[in-house]
């Protein structure tokens, strides 16, 4: 009988979207929902070839962070309408992913300033929740679907935590993140399988 390892998947939409755009050298406005339908099965498939293949993997949830229009915008005079429209569009698009079993959409209430295009709050909420679940020992393996070096401290902390966690970087690039993690899954080799159009 195989030993059991539990896992959680965390998806940083902002950096993955950026990587996909760079990969295609054009704007694919939003990540196709098929990506989220396939990502978990591709990760599990990949793990069957890894050093953890002797373990039975048990899912404990997949989390992605979506910006929500917070009450604070309404009072801000210099808010850029285009930024708000983009966020509304993003929100409506990713809402379809709520239908996927085991995938949870986490709202990020944001402040949006004129000319601001980055979505910072998503990273801090992801890191907070991943650390919180780790401290409660809710998972053994963290799969971080992200391409942003902002997450390097999270990976380093989990690798040296008292209740040691296996950390996997799942993404298209971000060498620092990849080298900090225990293992990695290169998504650029799985473009078609993930439901993304061919490059």
């Amino acid at each position, binding site marked *: 009988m195989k030993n059991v390892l539990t896992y959680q998947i965390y998806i940083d939409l902002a950096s993955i979207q950026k990587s996909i755009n760079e990969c295609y050298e054009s704007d694919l406005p939003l990540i196709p929902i098929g990506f989220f339908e396939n990502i978990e099965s591709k990760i599990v498939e990949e793990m069957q070839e890894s050093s953890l293949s002797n373990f039975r993997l048990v899912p404990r949830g997949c989390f992605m962070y979506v910006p929500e229009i917070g009450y604070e915008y309404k009072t801000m005079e210099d808010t850029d309408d285009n930024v708000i429209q983009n966020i509304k569009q993003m929100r409506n698009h990713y809402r379809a992913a709520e239908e996927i079993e085991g995938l949870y959409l986490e709202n990020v209430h944001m*402040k949006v300033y004129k000319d601001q295009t980055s979505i910072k709050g998503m990273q*801090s909420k992801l890191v*907070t*929740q991943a*650390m*919180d679940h780790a401290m409660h020992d809710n998972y053994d393996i963290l799969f971080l679907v992200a391409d942003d070096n902002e*997450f*390097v401290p999270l990976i380093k*902390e989990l690798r040296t935590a008292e209740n040691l966690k296996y950390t996997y970087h799942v993404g298209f690039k971000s060498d620092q993140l990849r080298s900090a993690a225990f293992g990695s899954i290169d998504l650029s080799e799985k473009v078609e399988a993930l439901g993304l159009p061919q490059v």
Partner: protein
Amino acid sequence: MIKRVSIYLDFDNIRNGYAKVQKGQRNSQALKTHLPIADLKNLNENLIKELSAFYVKSSEFYANVAFELVDTWSIIPLLDASVNKSGSYKFYKKISEVDDYFKMNLDEMYRGADLKEVGVDTWLITKMLKYRSLSDITVICSDDDDFAYAAAALIRHGQDCIHVGYQDGLLREECNGYLDLMETQIFSK
């Protein structure tokens, strides 16, 4: 009775807040003013003093409570030759030299090619969550609302979370209490 306190200082964020106050221009983008080293040396002591006064003001129960510092966490950029001529380099070097005085768990962080620090917020958040059981009160010195999620998580865990900063925002709202740096003597005016 003892209340254990951990302090997390988001260095550049507070430095920016301080500089804006010094220059009297709240929306200025280019800010060079540095936090006074003397104030940094006394930061722990003065923060504990202000914190104690804050609690006693809220309830007489705290008159007999001792506030004990566990740790102060902060992070500074690790600078390379490309920026070593700047005023910031001299300042950070000075901090590294005196960090024994203000007893911080300083870590260093590489700057990206654009001289922007990467991972400062996430570094602080991981420490807050990791060491949450070591203290009863977490003090977050920052005006960055990104810490609001960490504050909420710590409060759910049963901690008190105190915001120390210049701005009234989401972070202050999420915390159990706050010290407004405009009204304290922690950093010289």
